[in-house]
């Protein structure tokens, strides 16, 4: 390798690295922005907002996105195909992508997904409930909102037993 070739290779590598680092991929680790919007629409039909936040407001999409990059990596293909199908059904029924449809239209589309791709719907429903009711440290259940909804006292109050080993086991 000549000095000129080395410098050129180094410059190209640096440029590629810098471009990769400076590209704004959004907040998602696994999903694209479009996939995240579609997933949010499906999740919000499973846990809609009432007095408490909806699934997407409680961070369920963040939960699923993080798990698809880790423990649920095996489900990435199912999500990619399922979300594409959801948008396709949305376009056929409503003329727009699922995320852009009205809430009643979204409900119709999600019910159609449940009929046509039950495996994908069950997967999303399972992961939505995990994200909504699980520990906030995994990205969902933002601010422990579902625990407060259920009246679960978190973190629990746990005082110590005031025993004294030096006085025997029953002290």
């Amino acid at each position, binding site marked *: 390798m000549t000095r000129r070739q*080395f*410098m050129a290779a180094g410059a190209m590598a640096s440029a590629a690295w810098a471009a990769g680092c*400076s590209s704004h991929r959004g907040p998602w680790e696994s999903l694209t922005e479009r996939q995240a919007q579609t997933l949010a629409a499906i999740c919000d039909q499973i846990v809609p907002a009432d007095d408490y936040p909806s699934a997407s407001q409680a961070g369920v999409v963040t939960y699923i996105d993080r798990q698809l990059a880790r423990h649920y990596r095996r489900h990435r293909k199912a999500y990619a195909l399922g979300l594409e199908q959801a948008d396709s059904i949305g376009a056929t029924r409503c003329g727009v992508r699922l995320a852009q449809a009205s809430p009643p239209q979204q409900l119709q589309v999600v019910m159609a997904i449940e009929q046509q791709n039950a495996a994908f719907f069950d997967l999303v429903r399972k992961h939505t409930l995990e994200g909504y009711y699980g520990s906030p440290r995994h990205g969902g259940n933002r601010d422990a909102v579902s625990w407060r909804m259920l009246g679960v006292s978190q*973190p629990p*109050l746990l005082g110590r037993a*005031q025993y004294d080993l030096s006085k025997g086991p029953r002290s």
Partner: protein
Amino acid sequence: MKALLRVAALCLAAAVVLGAAGVSGASLYYDSQHGAGCTSCHEMAAYVGGVHDSAHRSQNCLDCHDTSLATKLRHIAVHLGRTGPEAIRLRDVDVVSMTSACQKCHQQEYATWHAGPHSATYRQIFTDAKQNTQRRLMDDCLRCHGMHYDGSVRDLVQPLNATGPWRVVRAGFADQPTMPCLTCHWIHREGSLETKPAERISVAGSPVHDSLAFFDRRERMHFAAAELPLPQLFDGATPVKVCPDRRQAICYQCHAPRQPDTGSVAAAHHWGPQAGSGDDRTPLGVHEGLSCFSCHQGHNENARASCKTCHPKMSHCGIDVEKMDTSYSNPASRHNIHWVRCTDCHTHGVPRAGRAAIASGE
């Protein structure tokens, strides 16, 4: 061979030059854009966004966070290798160094915290002979004494027995605080700008600052004080009046009551958790209904100047309240200041004048 050496030397020189330029350039880049540079790593976006909604919004990331070369290289390796954790958080060594960063601006708060028991070090807590001979060292100790510690108690102190001698085995941790600033303060949190409370002491309860939060070791996250539970306590079968001051919900996380033990009178009668059980210090008797913060300062627990806030110097009995036979004046007193009652001293009944004064709220 000579050409090969020349290429190797060239590579090395290029690496040094690029490294030096890269590190200093990166520091300038991240320091100059008020966090915008840091969010170009998409993993950090939510965290940088969080601090922009806090009282620390005017600070740059590098004002508080470590910028050493080793840290930057580690971040790059995690970013490129996509080996980051589900939720980004500070390592235990970073939390310890963060305390120094807090000190730079909050010098008075740091000084009062450092002077009090909440700044106890790992050595003071985990090698205390009185504690270790009476109770077992266990991971649950870390819930309140070392909630940011990344590991188990076995990695921290040895031996785990009741005979000792004990020593802190985690390098560099013996003289570090077990309860640093981030135990009760949540920096990257959403909320409004902090303002000074109108009054320091309030029985009704002051507004709860957004930054007040408890770091729960089990969930590895802060829980805002406003959302933490306040216990419903009992004195025997009688419900205890617990002050609604939400700030003290943080205190209750460690100074917590226990459910009645199986076989106890309280359990047999299905009474709720008893005031004074476990580590609870909820006031009963003459002080029932007061908040922790009615008497204690938050940062150092000091309550020495608190009596004058409510009491005239002389009690109804003509005795200086600070010199009465309570644990306030004498830690060995049988009359704990948290639970002292009129009848502790007036064993034959409270005199009529005293009852009238109490009834009229004097």
